[in-house]
């Protein structure tokens, strides 16, 4: 957006005062339109897109000095840490958080100390793939992202990117820039209100209404240039820590996988598009071909990574099912079973298929178009998960899917029971499946087996009540 300074406004009014009222309005209108269209012109936008980015900036922004506004942001970040912890959103698994810390710490240049930064790395209980950094040095990676990525190098890529945001003080810089933008919008609104019934007022009011939206779009991430800097600096950090740098590109490709059909492109977004990021990172990596890692090595790394985060993956599958993201749950559980087909992993795949119900396992090409995704998003806002299922079950395709997935779930539950060291929770899953299929006595029997094998289960009360209700029905 264009920056308007107060002296510029004073000058504008002095100029306007020299002309009659009607002419004044026209001049103000013309000047405001110039402001708007200069910043939105293709040349301005093209210049913004191709702004030169220093390939290897120093790891730390040494010129940065803390101001009052920055300290306020820092305070908010500390409070956010407390809130996330208090609200049960941080995964309370010491092994996982230590693992994240080990990988993250290995990326930070040796001996580096930053003013008002205390590095912490935590897993956040959220099935949406995402990661973010707070300016106080708290780095969060969601279980959804940890479960999606393939190996430790990809995890290092995510952390290196976030670490750069902290080291280069991107949050503070972005906040300062946003504050200037907001001031501009308020000033423009004031100019508009001087002639509310003229063209000037209408145009500026329209921009003021749209502009916060544009700004919210930038809040979803840092500016294009800052993101680019974090991508490229992240690659450098990965090379220094001896991680496979090309995995930065592969993790972007993974993020582009839209299993749930929710990545809707907005008409304006300051974030570089994923394909654009893949392009410039690949070209940056081109000059470092000697660093490319052998596939065999990556496969070994993948197995080690899965062993490290297997419990996080299972936890995330449960979260995905709770959030109605059954397609993601099936995708992630299948990866787990491919890695190790033990009783617990088979149980989670069965649970995912049971949750999938009448839905298709994959979205069609038509369903992945932007307009179809927008329609689906509107429907999601309106309907509950149960209503969506009822609607789908009213169609022949939905009934067919439901039958197929219920059969798959039953087979998988049975395989889980026949595997070595079967987990008791499989009986609960079978009970729920049979209850849905109307097999009341089978369901009650499975629930009873579950409670017999897990007398201290946290959901004992809930299952007990289901048994009572089923027995009541049978009378």
């Amino acid at each position, binding site marked *: 957006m264009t920056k308007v300074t107060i002296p510029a406004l004073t000058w504008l009014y002095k100029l306007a005062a020299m002309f009659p009222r009607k002419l004044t309005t026209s001049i103000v209108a013309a000047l405001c339109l110039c402001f708007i269209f200069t910043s939105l012109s293709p040349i301005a936008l093209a210049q913004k897109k191709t702004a030169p980015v220093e390939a290897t900036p120093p790891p730390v922004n040494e010129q940065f000095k803390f101001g009052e506004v920055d300290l306020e942001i820092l305070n*908010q970040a500390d409070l956010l840490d407390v809130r996330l912890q*208090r*609200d*049960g*959103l941080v995964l309370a698994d010491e092994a996982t958080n230590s693992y994240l810390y080990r990988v993250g710490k290995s990326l930070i240049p040796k001996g580096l100390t930053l003013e008002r930064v205390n590095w912490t790395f935590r897993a956040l209980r959220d099935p949406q793939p995402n990661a973010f950094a707070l300016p106080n040095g708290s780095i969060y990676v969601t279980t959804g992202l940890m479960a999606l990525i393939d190996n430790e190098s990809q995890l290092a890529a995510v952390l290196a990117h976030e670490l750069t945001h902290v080291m280069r003080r991107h949050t503070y810089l972005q906040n300062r820039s*946003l504050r200037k933008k907001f001031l501009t919008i308020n000033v423009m609104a*004031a100019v508009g209100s001087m002639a509310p019934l003229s063209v000037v007022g209408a145009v500026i009011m329209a921009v003021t209404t749209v502009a916060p939206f544009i700004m919210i779009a930038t809040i979803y991430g840092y500016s294009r240039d800052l993101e680019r800097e974090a991508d490229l600096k992240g690659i450098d950090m990965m090379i220094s820590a001896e991680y496979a740098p090309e995995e930065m590109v592969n993790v972007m490709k993974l993020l582009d996988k839209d299993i749930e059909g929710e990545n809707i492109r907005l008409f304006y977004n300051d974030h570089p598009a994923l394909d654009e990021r893949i392009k410039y990172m690949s070209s940056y990596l081109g000059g470092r071909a000697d660093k490319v890692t052998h596939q065999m090595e990556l496969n070994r790394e993948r197995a080690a990574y899965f062993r490290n985060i297997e419990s996080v993956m299972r936890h995330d599958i449960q979260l995905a099912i709770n959030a109605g993201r059954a397609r993601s749950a099936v995708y992630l559980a299948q990866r787990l079973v491919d890695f190790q087909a033990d009783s617990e992993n088979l149980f989670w795949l069965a649970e995912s298929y049971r949750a999938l119900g009448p839905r298709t396992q994959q979205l069609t090409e038509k369903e992945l178009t932007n307009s179809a995704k927008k329609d689906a998003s509107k429907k999601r806002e309106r309907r*509950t998960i149960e209503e969506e299922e009822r609607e789908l079950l009213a169609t022949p395709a939905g009934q067919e899917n439901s039958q197929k997935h219920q059969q798959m779930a039953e087979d998988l539950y049975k395989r889980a029971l026949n595997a070595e060291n079967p987990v008791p929770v499989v009986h609960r899953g079978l009970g729920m499946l049979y209850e849905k299929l109307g097999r009341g006595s089978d369901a009650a029997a499975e629930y009873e087996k579950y409670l017999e094998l897990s007398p201290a289960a946290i959901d004992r009360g809930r299952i007990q009540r289901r048994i009572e209700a089923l027995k009541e029905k049978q009378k």
Partner: protein
Amino acid sequence: MSGRAFMLALVVLLTASGSHSVRGQFLHPKIKSKETTIRSVVVMPAKVNVVRDSMKGPEGMAAESDDLSARVETMLTEVLLKQKHVKAVPTTAPSADGDPQQKYNVADFQTKFDALLPKIIKKRSDVKKGRFTMGDEVLNLNLDKDTDAVVFIRGEGKKLSSGKTAFTLLVGGVPAYLRLQIGIVDARNGEVLLYTDPILAGDPTTAVDRLRKALEKGFKKLPEVKAQ
């Protein structure tokens, strides 16, 4: 212009009604027919967020939001007891260093309400048809057997800086406000029994009497528990 006229109308309405109003109260048919009576409730930790809107954009108020959340929780408990004789039983929600599984259960149930809330807001009157439920996962909270319902409180508010207040008076815009969204859910089967969304005008961080009055109005339709 229509947006500004709407805000003006809202300010006038709020002023006329003593700076607080209730946009609607919706009761499940089971409550209306007295098939279900709410005698005791567990109030889940409130999530009320306020921002300070200045000329340089909105700024977070995390500490003030936490204070306000606690105040709304306490006040709601008092209003329910005093006005409706509904007792609030202490939650079995775990402390920060408690059992993580129990803590996750509470967090996941709160998340489930957050996911359901936009659908309720979209068609609040459907609460009267008994359309919304959170399922029997509510039993995983392992609440006291005498608990009839669980109360969820959400809210958002805006405090204006002095510059922004002057600016709003001159140019127009949204004044300072607090809007609460309160849902009461059956502790045995997860059905949404009541939804109300009181709103009050003015600085939300300092509102005490206005908040109490808004809450009292918000539960006007909830049947009173007769003393035994």
